[in-house]
């Protein structure tokens, strides 16, 4: 659009000064390898790519959230320095040599393990998404926030390394016949507790993890130990994990009896609603961005499902009337973010962009209309509706909902 200059004008002096006048980095000696003890950081030109707090969302910073800048990320890995944060009683940098894990409850032999010991056990490394159950919560009723960082940014994906929880339960002689529920408990002030589904433990999917993207978990994400519960909302991925208890009944902890319960139109709350259903969002172009010009664009975004692998993602540029199937970056991992890309030539006219995920169960991401027809607009959690971005004639992209 006229509003913005072209990024690559035809040069007036017979050439782009950025080419004709060699930059100092082509005519000088650069910096040396980083000195011992340094840890590499992003370019100074990337200062805009940061986690952000949504103004007015929470009253404290310790029971709060910072959102990942999805609009600026590539691929499926979330850099750990940009991983979304969600704390219920603040975060800590815990001395790992003093951290302990206890296994108790319906086990033959209650146990205590050090980090040294946990890290000696057979480990696995897997890519999984983590999404807060309250991701996209602000949008249940109406458009409330402008960008994908605020609409969908309680979402990240990492390679996690750890020990399958089932290994530890078996070590302790767990009564897997009568033990039907596991309590996971953190070591932070809230000593966060959640009831963990046994089926995911038995399948070997639930991990007691210490590694994230090749290094240890970050303090904000539970260093030195957290539970990884693939497909399940983030609150179950207990951070600073200190205890695992096997029991025969569910625990109804605060964050599964007062929060992370979904209010239905009839006034009933759904309890133990754990899984994140298939969902997707276009990250570029997305709300709050401006297209620089008419012409070709690569529409790109993320899809994920707590029920397994993403099978297909379709994209519409006309508000859901017509759809084309996007390219998925493979191999597609189960319960991990999946990047999709699709070609698009923007003609300068208004366009409404949508993406629609389908997972390996055949489930298709719903429209707002379909979702609200069952769940109303007050259930806070598990909003997986199709997102609409309106590209306006002036190039600006708006977060919109359709009737």
């Amino acid at each position: 659009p006229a509003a913005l200059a072209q990024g690559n004008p035809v040069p007036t002096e017979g050439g782009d000064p950025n080419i004709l006048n060699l930059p100092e980095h082509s005519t000088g000696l650069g910096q040396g390898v980083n000195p011992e003890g340094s840890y590499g950081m992003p370019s100074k030109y990337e200062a805009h790519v940061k986690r952000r707090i949504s103004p007015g969302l929470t009253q404290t910073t310790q029971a709060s959230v910072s959102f990942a800048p999805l609009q600026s990320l590539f691929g499926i890995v979330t850099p750990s320095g940009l991983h979304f944060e969600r704390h219920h009683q603040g975060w800590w940098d815990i001395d790992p040599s003093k951290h302990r894990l206890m296994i108790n409850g319906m086990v033959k032999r209650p146990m205590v393990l050090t980090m040294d010991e946990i890290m000696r056990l057979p480990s696995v490394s897997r890519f999984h998404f983590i999404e807060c159950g309250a991701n996209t919560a602000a949008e249940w009723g109406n458009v409330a926030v402008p960008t994908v960082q605020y609409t969908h940014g309680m979402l990240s994906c990492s390679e996690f390394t750890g020990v399958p929880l089932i290994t530890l339960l078996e070590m302790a002689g767990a009564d897997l016949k009568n033990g039907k529920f596991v309590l996971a408990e953190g070591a932070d002030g809230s000593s966060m507790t959640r009831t963990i589904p046994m089926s995911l433990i038995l399948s070997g999917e639930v991990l007691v993890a210490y590694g994230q993207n090749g290094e240890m978990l970050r303090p904000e994400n539970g260093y030195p130990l957290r539970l990884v519960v693939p497909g399940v909302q983030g609150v179950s991925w207990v951070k600073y994990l200190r205890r695992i208890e096997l029991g025969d009944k569910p625990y109804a902890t605060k964050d599964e009896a007062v929060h992370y319960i979904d209010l239905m139109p009839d006034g009933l709350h759904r309890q133990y609603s754990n899984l994140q259903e298939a969902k997707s969002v276009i990250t570029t172009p997305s709300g709050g961005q401006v297209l620089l010009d008419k012409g070709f664009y690569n529409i790109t975004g993320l899809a994920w499902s707590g029920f397994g692998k993403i099978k297909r993602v379709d994209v519409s540029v006309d508000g859901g009337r017509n759809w084309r199937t996007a390219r998925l970056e493979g191999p597609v991992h189960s319960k991990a973010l999946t990047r999709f890309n699709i070609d698009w030539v923007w003609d300068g006219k208004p366009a409404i962009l949508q993406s629609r995920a389908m997972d390996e169960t055949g489930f298709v991401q719903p429209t707002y209309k379909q979702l609200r027809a069952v769940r109303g607009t007050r259930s806070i959690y598990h909003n997986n509706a199709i997102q609409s971005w309106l590209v306006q004639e002036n190039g600006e992209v708006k977060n919109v909902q359709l009737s």
Partner: protein
Amino acid sequence: AEKFPGVGRTATPKEVAAWDIDVRPDFKGLPPGSGTVAKGQDIWETKCASCHGTFGDSNEVFSPLAGGITPDDIKTGRVAKLKDPTAGRTTFMKVATLSTIWDYIHRAMPWTQPKSLSPDEVYSVVAFLLNLNGIVPDNFTLSDKNIAEVQQRMPNRNGMTTKHHLWPGNEFGGTKTPDTHNVACMKDCAPEPKVASFLPDFARNAHGNLAEQNRIIGPVRGEDTTKPAPK
């Protein structure tokens, strides 16, 4: 032979006692003890009211704990106000299980000094909160002996359902099918789209300047929300 020789050891009873503090809906894990509404009020005023308000109704540090409950709710075990789309939702309007409140206060409150309350103090302050919400009388003493009876008066005790698709496994006997059944239609699927909701112009800059929330290069820029939208 051990499967993982050298790894891990048996926990001692003292150790398990130190950490196994959870209290379940059937009150497994609840330590013996008791506390009165009056004692609870004292504790509340010293240790809780600064954040939650004298009547548990403050919205300053966290959403309100108390209020929104009618005597009829206590009878039916369903909080009627939860059907009202305009109503706020307090903790006691939602919670079905008293154990949850006892357990959480014991492990996590006061926020800046979690685990500093003795069991009797927790009984007391829970009694106070029950009283604030009209569930027990002013002169009530809550204890491990009568807590199960009080559970029978929890205003939203019948307000939970597990009939849904979102728990992996059969433990709660949820539903087998999802709530929604969208189909992957590809052509002429929907009528001409109409925008029903968007942010008003005055909120353009409410989340800060979006130009500074996008990379300085790339296929797009962030909107300069310090200025009105370009024509």
